């Protein structure tokens, strides 16, 4: 885009004189900054209002998750103390005495039924747990998916065939069932069933099971892209000029598939968050008393008829989060690949 205008503005190749001439006449110097594809995408994204708002929402969630300990310190409560029971704010059925789930100046989002923990800190810590696990799963899945896709597409032949069949095999596992069945198995790998299991083992197990079935979609996409790129002239040119395979992958292939990777990651993350929350909801993910987004739904499902408010906060928070992420994914795709029809 910038090259024709460069040619039009400076017909005579006198680069040394050109700036002096401009300064002398006091004219506004035409800005001839080269725009990289990334910069163009960023400019397009900046113009997309929905995308910017969604990016703001997503960043907000990330900040809340990161700063949860800080926020709860300022707020003066923690997600483990049983305020409702200790302060006598629950009735004999374990339902908050005050209306709307016990919302007041002290407990902004009310109290959890039965145990009486503070919903606000539960939620921010829950988001922290779920988002952290989902981020880890997404990162590992994407990295491994890209690696396998690259190997498949670039090497082709037998390694492509076997990795492809392997990915077929993994795709044939019933996903949710695999998660719930193998989380205890992996936990048992680290700790004997009789011992108290530390939370980080659970988290590691959840990350591992979700990753094991999570990399195939990225892998297939990357493979397809690399297959079509591999035959292009610029790759051939690089190879003829003696570039090593590592260099071709790093400097020629990867820059071309970044956009796919980025879009896939933004679409994968909310899926992983809801999957993790679903596992905790079913009672096979994070175990209480560790705060978790999905566990809040589990608690809420038991009390939704007497205390709807408690379900409302995690539910709405999750809908907003997923909507924002999905819209962000669409905007990122539009920004990176303006050719797609929508």
């Amino acid at each position, binding site marked *: 885009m910038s090259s024709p205008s460069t040619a039009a503005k400076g017909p005579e190749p006198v680069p040394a004189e050109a700036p002096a001439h401009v300064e002398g006449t006091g004219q506004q110097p035409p800005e001839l900054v080269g725009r990289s594809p990334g910069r163009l995408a960023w400019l397009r994204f900046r113009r997309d209002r929905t995308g910017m708002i969604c990016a703001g929402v997503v960043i907000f969630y990330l900040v809340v998750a990161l700063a949860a300990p800080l926020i709860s310190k300022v707020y003066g409560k923690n997600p483990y103390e049983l305020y409702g029971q200790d302060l006598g704010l629950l009735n004999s059925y374990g339902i908050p005495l005050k209306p709307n789930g016990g919302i007041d100046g002290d407990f902004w989002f009310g109290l959890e039924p039965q145990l009486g923990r503070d919903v606000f800190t539960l939620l921010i810590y829950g988001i922290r747990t779920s988002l952290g696990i989902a981020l880890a799963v997404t990162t590992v899945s994407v990295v491994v998916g890209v690696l396998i896709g690259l190997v498949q597409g670039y090497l082709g032949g037998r390694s492509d065939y076997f990795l492809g069949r392997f990915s*077929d*095999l993994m*795709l*044939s*596992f*019933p*996903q*949710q*069932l*695999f998660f*719930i*069945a*193998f989380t*205890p*198995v992996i936990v*048992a*790998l680290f700790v*004997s*069933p009789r011992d108290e299991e530390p939370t980080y083992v659970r988290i590691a197990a959840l990350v591992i099971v979700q990753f094991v079935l999570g990399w195939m979609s990225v892998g297939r996409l990357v493979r397809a892209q690399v297959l079509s790129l591999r035959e292009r002239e610029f790759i051939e040119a690089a190879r003829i000029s003696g570039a090593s395979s590592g260099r071709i992958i790093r400097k020629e292939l990867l820059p071309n598939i970044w956009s796919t990777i980025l879009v896939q990651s933004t679409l994968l993350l*909310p899926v992983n968050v*809801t999957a993790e*929350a*679903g596992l905790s*909801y*079913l*009672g*096979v993910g994070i175990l209480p008393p560790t705060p978790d987004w*999905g566990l809040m*739904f*589990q608690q*809420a*499902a038991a009390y*939704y*008829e007497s205390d*709807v408010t408690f*379900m409302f906060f*995690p*539910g709405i928070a*999750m*809908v907003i989060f*997923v*909507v924002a992420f*999905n*819209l962000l994914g669409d905007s990122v795709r539009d920004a990176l690949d303006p050719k797609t*029809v*929508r």
Partner: protein
Amino acid sequence: MLRFLVRRVLGALVILLLISAITYFLFFFLPSDPALLSCGKNCSPQNVALIRKNLGLDLPIWTQYWHFMVGIFAGRDMPIGHCPAPCFGYSFADQQLVWDTIADRYPTTLSLAIGGATVFLCVGVGLGLVSAWQQGRAFDRIASGVSLVGNSVQIYFLGPIAIGLFASSWHVLDRGHDPDWSHDPWGSVQGLILPCMVLSVIFWSNYSRQTRSLMVEQMSEDHIRAARAKGMSSRYVFLRYALRGAAASIITIFGIDLSAVLGGAIITEVTFGLHGLGLLSVQAVLRSDLPLEMAVMLIGATIIVVCNIVVDAAYALIDPRIRLS
């Protein structure tokens, strides 16, 4: 076609064999001692030894796996009693035949899956088609917005709300219960309406989005323009040409989703307390009932590979450019 089917079925069998092997080894060869699990909380070492012998856990793992696989096709005699042909052993938790338990629970899962899939396919594709037809107008905007939110709502949030509204407050729908088709067909339908509705929401919103974008993409293709230039009515072109082009992709997604719900819509079943395969599998995991888990996993995987083959065959029927090889 025949060659394609034979090849695919053979491939599917290999995949199932591998899945059964991986699952079996992970379940039975890991530190979580199945004998301890099936024995319960406090049991004596003698008991454990006895159970280990009864379950055949003292044999080498390969032999155990071989017995298990032979049992599925030919049945086997277990210490606890004979186990007829599709033999997945006896449940650790209640000493029932695993296959009987599954056969008992499967009608619920099947009813939920068929009901839900019908709703989400019709509503989703229908909405998508109308949105694409009305592209850019009010209906399209509203439908896109609804689909976006629907796509982002989770069953564990929507389910309790739906029960609270439709069943507890307004009393217009049943809160969801297991179907009993032979004794109470009408009651079964009523019991399934709410679960099917909730289950289908997350799916149809995806279908309407996909269908819409596929149709919009199709309508900009050259052959569509050529057909319009020849003077064909736009509705005919839309429904006959563009829909046919979009159908292949829709069927692919449908195959994946259908196989997922046929293998047990776990969260829906748990939320509505339906005693199908999904709830069964969660209970099996919580009780460490390995034979039951094993069976549910294999059934789920079988459904997935069968659906894949059917989808690929259907794909070729719809799109003559694709040759089965």
